[in-house]
């Protein structure tokens, strides 16, 4: 095994362990922290695949921004632990069915894509050069301009929605 492969398996173990920890933690704050660790592990995967830009964006956006907000909300609402006995009863049947479908898809893609090694092909080496940022920027603002703008409008709508929902009525409490 090469160093890359050893690293991959260690990281994979950490990623699976943190994901399980996130699901099974009784305390919501611990769940959130496990999720942060999981995101960090995924970021290291991207680094291994030679994509530093995506790795660092992963840390900034998910671990740095989104999860901090999650933690913020959990702590603000004091929702660290749910009261016992409030689990939806039939949920686990649907959940395990969906999980089976997901696992089947993943196995199909892994086996179908590169049967010889079982590992996914590495992306091209150009990702690790100075130009990779330029390439991403050019791709975003030329070929993928429409999805990019659509995403930004979606975010804007969400933001306006949040402001409308929390805005106080005129003449109400000040």
């Amino acid at each position: 095994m090469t160093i890359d492969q050893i690293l991959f398996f260690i990281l994979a173990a950490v990623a699976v362990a943190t994901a399980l920890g996130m699901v099974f933690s009784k305390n919501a704050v611990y769940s959130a922290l496990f999720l942060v660790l999981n995101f960090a592990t995924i970021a290291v995967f991207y680094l291994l695949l030679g994509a530093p830009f995506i790795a660092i964006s992963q840390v900034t956006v998910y671990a740095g921004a989104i999860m901090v907000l999650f933690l913020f909300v959990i702590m603000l609402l004091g929702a660290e632990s749910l009261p016992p006995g409030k689990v939806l009863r039939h949920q686990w049947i649907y959940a395990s069915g969906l999980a089976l479908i997901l696992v089947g898809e993943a196995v199909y893609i892994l086996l179908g894509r590169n049967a010889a090694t079982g590992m996914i092909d590495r992306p091209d080496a150009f990702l690790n050069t100075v130009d990779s940022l330029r390439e991403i920027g050019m791709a975003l603002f030329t070929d993928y301009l429409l999805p990019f703008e659509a995403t930004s409008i979606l975010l804007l709508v969400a933001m306006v929605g949040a402001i409308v929902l929390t805005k106080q009525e005129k003449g109400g409490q000040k």
Partner: protein
Amino acid sequence: MDWTIWLEWTIKSLFVIFSLLTGFAYLTLYERRALARIQVRIGPNRAGWQGLLQPVADAVKLIFKEELTPAKADKLVFFWAPIITMVPSIVIAAVIPFGPTTTLFGREIVFSVADINVGVLFLMAVASIAVYGIVLAGWSSNNKYAMLGGLRSSAQMISYELSLGLGFVTAILLGNSMNLNDIVDAQKGMWFAVVQPVGALIFMIVTLAEVNRAPFDMPEAEQELTAGYHSEYSGMKFALFFMAEYQKMIAICMIAATLFFGGYREFWFLQNTFLSVDALWTIGAWQFQAWFLGPLYLLLKVVVLLFFMIWIRATWPRIRYDRLMSFGWKVLLPLSLVMVFISAVGVLLAQEIGPGYIWLIPVVSIAVGLFATAMIDLALRRKKYASH
């Protein structure tokens, strides 16, 4: 891999870590003495010559203090929170170049621990991770004051991170790269603080908020929250928070110096003299590049920037929390967006028409900055009359 690469990495990492740790120790003394001067006192001058051994005395005192863990605290998170706060404050310095690329002992040496292409993004990522330690410390203490302090600081840091990111964007636009070495090299002719003065000023204000310094030191507003997120911490755990805060100050000053004040480069008017970091010095038959001036210039710039931080702390009252938030969201964010726009247009004009057009950026941005200040003044004045 060659063992000399490992040696080079080890030496560079140790240099950065030890300069940050020593910097922290003497920054506390520097701050206390400077504050004392401003308040017409003398300050600590008993331990050693001019109080130079005071940091050592403080360290010994803190080591021997008793460490308390509140009975109802979340023990695990309570233990890890100071460490999570401390690590980013050191790691963030990894990408900052402290000298020009030079040839030493027959090999090319880059004076930064990690010379990566996404350096600016790395800074952004680490800055956004730094919130965790404070939030977790506040939560795990199981104390309402600590909790409120942690929540305030997370809200504050998230809000000001946006303007911080736009400040980074300004530097990236002007330097045409995300690599910090390239950004410093691009400031050979002129500092970005001169090309985009309003952007640099906004960046400096935002960094104050980002490291929770006065007048934005909400998380530890003594009158309201006792000591904020570290109320329950004592002994060395408290010392770690203290260290993290001062190391963040140093790191953020290094970042500001790198992005806007020419980093390790000489002052732009010394560019072709023997004081330049590119100059070749000749002593007898021995000729060498003056690379060692790089760290000295960076140190000088950091000390000056730190003095401004201390000066502001000594002279400005704390801003009320809601005003802090509206200042960040309603003033700094739109203004820094406008600055990014002006810089982008200026860079484009300079590329397409002629390099002289780059000077439209400072002219237009100062005009816009003054206009914005006047409008804020007007708005505040109206509110004052209305309340009477």
